[in-house]
């Protein structure tokens, strides 16, 4: 279980919530309310106060890279630093590639030739290769068509069922929210969380 208690940053209201194993919680709210900031605080990218625990382990007890591998953020825009796709992966699973609609040789593709949708899907695979226990997804299907959105949704659902990981999914798409969530949280314009 992932427990967030009294988390706050830059003087904003304190937030508390928790994610159960296997649970998919959707987070929505007006733009600028701080959803991305919340995700950044959860992976400890920005200065913040409060207690974060994963299965009873405080984040301070883990070195930052380990914490970030377990509590993993998929940013809205992916970044790539090497020339080809495969260089960004420790392991590139061909079956997983196929499930997201890629050909087997996608690992050899050059980054500059990828479309934004391809990058987004590959970034998800890159993240899942770390076998995270909490997924924080910032609009993971924003650049995708209907077919690929469904592929991504299916893959994440499958991952949660297989591993018992939890997921916090930021989305603006009402239909997607209804289709996916076990539970919903809404961030208000003042930066408070309403849990339903």
């Amino acid at each position, binding site marked *: 279980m992932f427990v967030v208690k009294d988390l706050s940053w830059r003087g904003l209201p304190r937030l508390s919530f928790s994610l159960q194993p296997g649970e998919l919680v959707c987070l929505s709210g007006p733009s600028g309310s701080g959803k991305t900031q919340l995700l950044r605080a959860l992976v400890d*990218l920005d200065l913040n106060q409060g207690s974060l625990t994963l299965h009873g382990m405080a984040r301070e007890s883990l070195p930052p*890279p380990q914490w970030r591998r377990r509590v993993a953020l998929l*940013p809205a*825009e992916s*970044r790539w*630093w090497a020339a080809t796709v495969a260089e960004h992966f420790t392991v590139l699973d061909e079956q997983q590639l196929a499930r997201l609609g890629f050909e087997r040789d996608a690992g050899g593709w050059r980054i500059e030739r990828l479309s934004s949708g391809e990058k987004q899907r590959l970034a998800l695979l*890159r993240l899942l290769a*770390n076998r995270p226990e909490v997924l924080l997804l910032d609009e993971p299907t924003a650049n995708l068509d209907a077919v690929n959105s469904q592929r991504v949704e299916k893959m994440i659902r499958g991952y949660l069922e297989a591993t018992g990981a939890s997921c916090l999914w930021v989305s603006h798409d009402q239909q997607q929210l209804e289709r996916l969530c076990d539970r919903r949280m809404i961030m208000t314009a003042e930066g408070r969380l309403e849990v339903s």
Partner: protein
Amino acid sequence: MTTLSTLDLSIAALLVVALALTARRVYPGLAKQLLLAAARTAIQLTLVGLVLKTLFANVSLLWVSLLALLMLAVAGREVMARQHRRFTGTWGYTIGVVSMFISSFSIALFALVVVVGHKPWYQPQYAIPLLGMLLGNTMNGIALALDRLTQSAWEQRELIEARLVLGHSASEAVSGIRQQVFRSGLIPIINAMAAAGIVSLPGMMTGQILAGVPPVEAVKYQIMIMFLIAGGAGFGTLAAVRLGVRRLFDERERLRLDRLKR
């Protein structure tokens, strides 16, 4: 050696004045800057000449050390001033000074004691020019490297953070930047060594030849200086990059761009 009279220098100065007059119309600001810089050269070098004259007359470790520290302090200020996005607070100054101290001072000491071997080792005639050349070049390398480091971190924030969230350590996340930064710090001396003697005759060697030293002896000194500078600039840049990267991240390996000047 033929000495130069004030008249000789005035004739050389006419060249700068002529340039300023010619450029005055199109580049008024630059002409003024040029004259000011030329005046500074004349005044600063005359003063340093007098200081060195006194220093050479009274060989004392204390005075040599004091002058060396003054040179270091000024070089540190120069490194800081050349950075577009320097570290805030005292860090902007200390990173440069510490790196220059580690590299230039220890290498100058090594050269004076082991390589040159004059007695006493702090003989100002050797110690001050040697340290000056080392500091000047190390300063260039460190200033370039730190400027590049902070600028790249600023521009590539999203890339660095993308690697951090994938569980890369701070050091891995900036590995690409670090390579480029180290390269930019070393390029000036690599170029100088590669072109030495073919494209340009290095200043120190030229000076010694003008003073009547046999060319082969002057060349030996120049080769030593080039190697010392390569070491000084290289180790100084390594130290500066290491300290800089450390300061860019905090204990939770967060990229702290708030520690840079906006």
